[in-house]
Every structure is written in structure tokens, then in C-alpha cells.
């Protein structure tokens, strides 16, 4: 019998006669463990990893130095000023929170829908979620100006008799993002316990045995533990599912409950959630394609996985495009001249360049995913997904800045210009994101080994 190589199998074609598996190649439970665990066990990182890490750590240091400069000096170091009081910090916050949506969607919703292909990418996507939410959380925290009063956002009894305004979506936002970060981190960690125990049991040095041993919380793989584990995992998935929808819904309320033309629309919650999933999946693809090539995971994260994600990007991209269209329709149909002005001003006003960047990146670029050739060509999908993420950043910029710069008082109209601090901070947040991500790739199991084994065809190579 001829040997079947990875390249021979095209598992993007679902042919019932052959029924290709989720994974390609000849995998066995042992080979999966060896393949994934050895990545976290290399005694020295590769030169490429070191170079990437050096760059990201430098950017992270720059980021935190700028945060220090901001706190010492005040928010005047940003371009935020009348009438645009929400500048890049809020744009960046919404951008990062949006990216953080793919992880929980993949881990929770796809889990409940029994989408087996998620097992190869869920660990990766969840890690990305947590790191994106970390970046997101920093921006509103430093945007409050006097960060040492951040506890005023929390309902803490105090001698000022100040209490958060529970009617304000800005407060709901604090709760929503905190709940989301907590649940995602718990879900990620819980799912990782069996794999951490594997790393612990394979550990060759005392330090690694101790570190993974503490992290694995005494997991011994008994059937009792597995039974409880699976129950807890299912419960957390059920808890996390509404969060996927609620977080960005509430982020959209930050805008939608105000009376600002261009913000005050009921389409915002679904439109924001679709946009978040859109940008999140685009980010997963952007990171996954180089990572699977670099770490040799092509048999576990196959073209079929990437193709499925491209389909999600295409679908959510069209939802976002539909929302852009409906906003204009309602502005006309609603007959509110301020709303009409806001939208004409978006497309043809001083920020026309941002608006059309957004439309080309978010609506036009993903249309290429109609072609199977594009959906199965890794470099092409990365290119498109980078466009999508650029476009989604511009979407938040367009929403935030165009509406604020043309408020109800024409005398206070202005044109927002970012400062170098704005720009460097945004770049620095990528540094933080990639630093955390590179550490994850280096020390933790990148693929959920235990879960992947559960969806492997057990009849062969066993």
C-alpha cells in the first residue's frame, strides 16, 4: 500500500465516500502529544523567536513608558480635545475588545454546536482573546485621566458618597469586560489542565516539573477527574456563550445610548457583534497561518480549519457591509436631518479617506473569499485578513471621531489630529499583545492535545 503523505490529502473537499478527517497525516495520540509538547519543551528558542520577542518586548517597554508619561503629565499628551474627547484610546479599546471575540466564539459556541474542527485552534484563539482583552482593558483605564481614582468606577462605599451611575452603559461596560476577561481566562485555564499535566509528566528538569505541577493543580487523569472536568467545561461554555454576544453589545451601548447623530441607532449591538467576530477571526488567521508553518503544525491545523475560518470572515464581513448600508438607509428613511448630515459627512466629509478605507477593507476585500482558491491559499488569506483588521480599526475610528467632530454646536466643530503619543501607544499595544503571545507559544501547549485526541479517528494507527 502506498504511503499517504500530508500533501496528498485535500480535506477541504468533504467527500462522503472518503470522509477526510479533521486532521491530516498519520496521527496517533502519542504523536500528537510528542508534536505539541515538544514545542513547549525546547531548551532554547529559535533565533526567529528571539528576534520577534526582542522587538515585541521593546515595543511593550515603550508602551508602558508612554503610559507612565501619560499618568505623570495628563491626558493632554493625546490628541483628545474639544469636541473629540474620545480619540484613539477608545478606538483602540473597541478594536482590541473586538479582536478578543473570536476566542470565546470558537471555544464556547462552536463547542456547544459540536463543531469538532475547533479543537485544533481553540487553545490558540482563546490565548489570543485573553491577550487582546488585556490590551483592551488598559486603554479605558488610562483614559480616565487620574488613574489613581479608578476605584470610583466600582461600587465601593466611600466618604464621598459617590456611587457609580448604574444607568450608564460605561459602567455596564466595566462589568461586561471584566466578566468576559475572567470567564475567558478561566475557560482557557480549565481546558489546559490535562495538557499542563502532560507537560508536567514529561518534564525533565525539576523546575519545569514544579512549575507545570503547580499549574496542573494535581491533575492525575482519573476517570472521576475527567467526568468532573467535562461537566465543568460544558458549564463554562454555556456561561461564556451569552458573553460573546453581551460584551460587544454593551460596548456598542457606550455609543448607542447617547444622542450623538451617527451613534444613536438600534442597529449598533448586532452590527458591533458581527464586526467583533469578523475582526477576531481575521486576527486568528493572521496569527495562525505563520504559526502553523513556523511550528510545523500543518497536520493539526489544516487547510480545512483555515478555510472554515475564511468562511466565517466572509459571512460576518457581509453582515458588517449590510450594516453600513442600512445605516445610510435609515438615515434617509428616518427623515432626521442631523442623522442624514452625520452619514453624508462620514462618506464625503473631512474624514472621507477613513470611511472609504473602512469600506474597501471590510466590505470589498473579504469578497475574494468567495473563491476557493483564495480560501485555501494561506498567504492570500493573511493578506486579506490584515486588510480586515486595518479596516476594523478604521471602522471604530470613523464611528468615534466623525460623529464627535461634528456635534450639535457648529461653533465647536473640529478636526481630530493624533499626537505621536497616540500613534506610538497604539503600536506599543501590539508589542504587549505579541509579547504575551510569544511567551504562550514558547511555554504552553499551543494546541489542545487532549481535545484533539478526542476527535481523531481511533480505528487507525492506534
Amino acid at each position, binding site marked *: 500500500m502506498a504511503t499517504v503523505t500530508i500533501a496528498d490529502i485535500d480535506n477541504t473537499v468533504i467527500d462522503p465516500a472518503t470522509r477526510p478527517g479533521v486532521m491530516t497525516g498519520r496521527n496517533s495520540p502519542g504523536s500528537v502529544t510528542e508534536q505539541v509538547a515538544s514545542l513547549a519543551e525546547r531548551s532554547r528558542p529559535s533565533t526567529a523567536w528571539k528576534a520577534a520577542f526582542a522587538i515585541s518586548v521593546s515595543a511593550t517597554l515603550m508602551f508602558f513608558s508612554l503610559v507612565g508619561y501619560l499618568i505623570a503629565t495628563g491626558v493632554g499628551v493625546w490628541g483628545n480635545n474639544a469636541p473629540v474627547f474620545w480619540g484613539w484610546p477608545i478606538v483602540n479599546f473597541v478594536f482590541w475588545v473586538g479582536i478578543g471575540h473570536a476566542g470565546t466564539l470558537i471555544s464556547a459556541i462552536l463547542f456547544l454546536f459540536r463543531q469538532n474542527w475547533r479543537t485544533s485552534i481553540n487553545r490558540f484563539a482563546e490565548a489570543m482573546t485573553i491577550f487582546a482583552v488585556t490590551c483592551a482593558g488598559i486603554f479605558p483605564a488610562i483614559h480616565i485621566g487620574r488613574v489613581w481614582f479608578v476605584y470610583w468606577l466600582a461600587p465601593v462605599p466611600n466618604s464621598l458618597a459617590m456611587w457609580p451611575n448604574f444607568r450608564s452603559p460605561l459602567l455596564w461596560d466595566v462589568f461586561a469586560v471584566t466578566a468576559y476577561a475572567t470567564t475567558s481566562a478561566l475557560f482557557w485555564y480549565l481546558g489546559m489542565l490535562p495538557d499542563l499535566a502532560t507537560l508536567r509528566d514529561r518534564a525533565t528538569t525539576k523546575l519545569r516539573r514544579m512549575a507545570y*505541577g503547580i499549574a496542573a493543580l494535581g491533575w*492525575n487523569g482519573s476517570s472521576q477527574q475527567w467526568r468532573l472536568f467535562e461537566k465543568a467545561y460544558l458549564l463554562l461554555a454555556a456561561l461564556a456563550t451569552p458573553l460573546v454576544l453581551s460584551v460587544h453589545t454593551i460596548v456598542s451601548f457606550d455609543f448607542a445610548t447617547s444622542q450623538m447623530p451617527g451613534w444613536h441607532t438600534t442597529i449598533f449591538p448586532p452590527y458591533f457583534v458581527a464586526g467583533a467576530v469578523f475582526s477576531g477571526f481575521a486576527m486568528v488567521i493572521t496569527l495562525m497561518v505563520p504559526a502553523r508553518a513556523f511550528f510545523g503544525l500543518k497536520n493539526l491545523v489544516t487547510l480545512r480549519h483555515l478555510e472554515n475560518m475564511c468562511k466565517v470572515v466572509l459571512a460576518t464581513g457581509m453582515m458588517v457591509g449590510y450594516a453600513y448600508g442600512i445605516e445610510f438607509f435609515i438615515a434617509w428613511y428616518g427623515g432626521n436631518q442631523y442623522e442624514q448630515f452625520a452619514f453624508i459627512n462620514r462618506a464625503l466629509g473631512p474624514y472621507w479617506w477613513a470611511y472609504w478605507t473602512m469600506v474597501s477593507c471590510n466590505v470589498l476585500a473579504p469578497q475574494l473569499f468567495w473563491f476557493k482558491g483564495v480560501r485555501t491559499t494561506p498567504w492570500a488569506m493573511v493578506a486579506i485578513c490584515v486588510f480586515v483588521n486595518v479596516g476594523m480599526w478604521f471602522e471604530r475610528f470613523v464611528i468615534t471621531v466623525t460623529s464627535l467632530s461634528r456635534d450639535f454646536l457648529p461653533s465647536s466643530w473640529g478636526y481630530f489630529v493624533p499626537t505621536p503619543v497616540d500613534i506610538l501607544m497604539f503600536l506599543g499595544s501590539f508589542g504587549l499583545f505579541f509579547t504575551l503571545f510569544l511567551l504562550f507559544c514558547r511555554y504552553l501547549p499551543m494546541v489542545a492535545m487532549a481535545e484533539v485526541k478526542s476527535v481523531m479517528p481511533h480505528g487507525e494507527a492506534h
Partner: protein
Amino acid sequence: MFQFPIWVNSLIKLSLVAIPVGGLYGIFLLATATAPETTHIGYAPKQPVRFSHRLHAGQLKMDCRYCHNTVETTAHASIPPTATCINCHSPADGNGAVSLTAIHAASPDLAEVHRSWADDTPVKWKRVHDLPDFVQFDHSAHVARGVSCVSCHDRVDQMDVVSQNHTLSMKSCLECHRNPDPHLRPLDKVTDMDWVAPKSRLEMGALIKDHMNIKANQNCSTCHY
């Protein structure tokens, strides 16, 4: 397979100690934060003159506004100049002659007042009720609308040495601003220390509020400007 070493069990015993200690620390923090020393309750500095409000405002029934005369019209309730004291307590003149109306002209307690009068330099009274610099409090806005001195300064007419008896925290301001009715009196009773509120105080307060068009603001910029 790795197992947690046996000494990990001793961490449980440690937690039996750590939890009560942490609890005690929490109680200590709370007690320190609310202690009178922190909130300035009972702050009664020694003044350069042994002036007794109990005597002047209490027994002699002098109106607060005799000395603090700007309280109804300006933000600051003025501390009286030495001249106000001298109205009653003029010292002997250069020839040793004492005015017939002068009270206790030779009292050693008044020596500092007389020195101030002779040197034309003020008595260095110590401020008791001191708000942070980032808060603006306007006496006239309150006194001229039926908020009594007693609401913040307590029964000064019963104090030999004035002490601070209210916290003057933002909470105490906001409690009244959120619900002014029980703190309002008829304007002629504002400086009446002995005034006993009638049973219908809430209705009366509501009536005064309505009549004087009192809208106690709660915006940040009401006090922080």
C-alpha cells in the same frame, strides 16, 4: 508522575493563620480610616485667646452675625477683626483711664487682644473647620436660604473651645444636597441655636424649599470649580 510534595499540606495550616491575620488587618484599616483623628472629629486647637463661645453666644445670647457679619452676604464667614472685640473690651488708654463701658479691661485673658489693638497686628486665630482647597463652600448660599449654622458647626453656643463635631466629608455635603428638606428653617431662626424643630418639620422644610426655590445642585462643578 509528579505529585505535590507533602510539605504543601503545611500551607493549609498557614492559611489558618493568614486568614484571621488578614481579617484583622482589614479591621485595622477600616478603623484607621474612620478614626476621629483621620476625620478630624474633635479637632479643637488651642486658640491664642481664651475666647468662649459658650459665654458670648450661649449665656449672653449674642447673635453669630455680630462678629461673623459677612456670613449672609459672602462666601466667607468673616473672622472678626480685633476692633470688634474692642467694641466691648477696650483697654485702658495712655493715661491709665478705663472707659466706663469697657468690660474686663484689665483681664489677663484679654492681654493678647489688647496687644493686637496696640500693635495693629491681627490675633492669629486658628482655623477649626477647614475644607480642602479644591472645594468651594459659600456661606451666604446656605445661610441666606435657611440652613442653620448648627447643621455643620454643631452647638457652638455650648463650647468653651470650638471643636469640629462633623466630618465635613463630601458625603455630609451630599446627604443634605440630595435631601435638603429636614435641614431647612425659617430665615429668622438660622442663627437661633436653641431652636426646636416643630413636629411638622418635613412639611415646613418642603414649603421653605418651594418658597425659596431651592434646588440643591449635585453637579461636580457646584463645589469643585
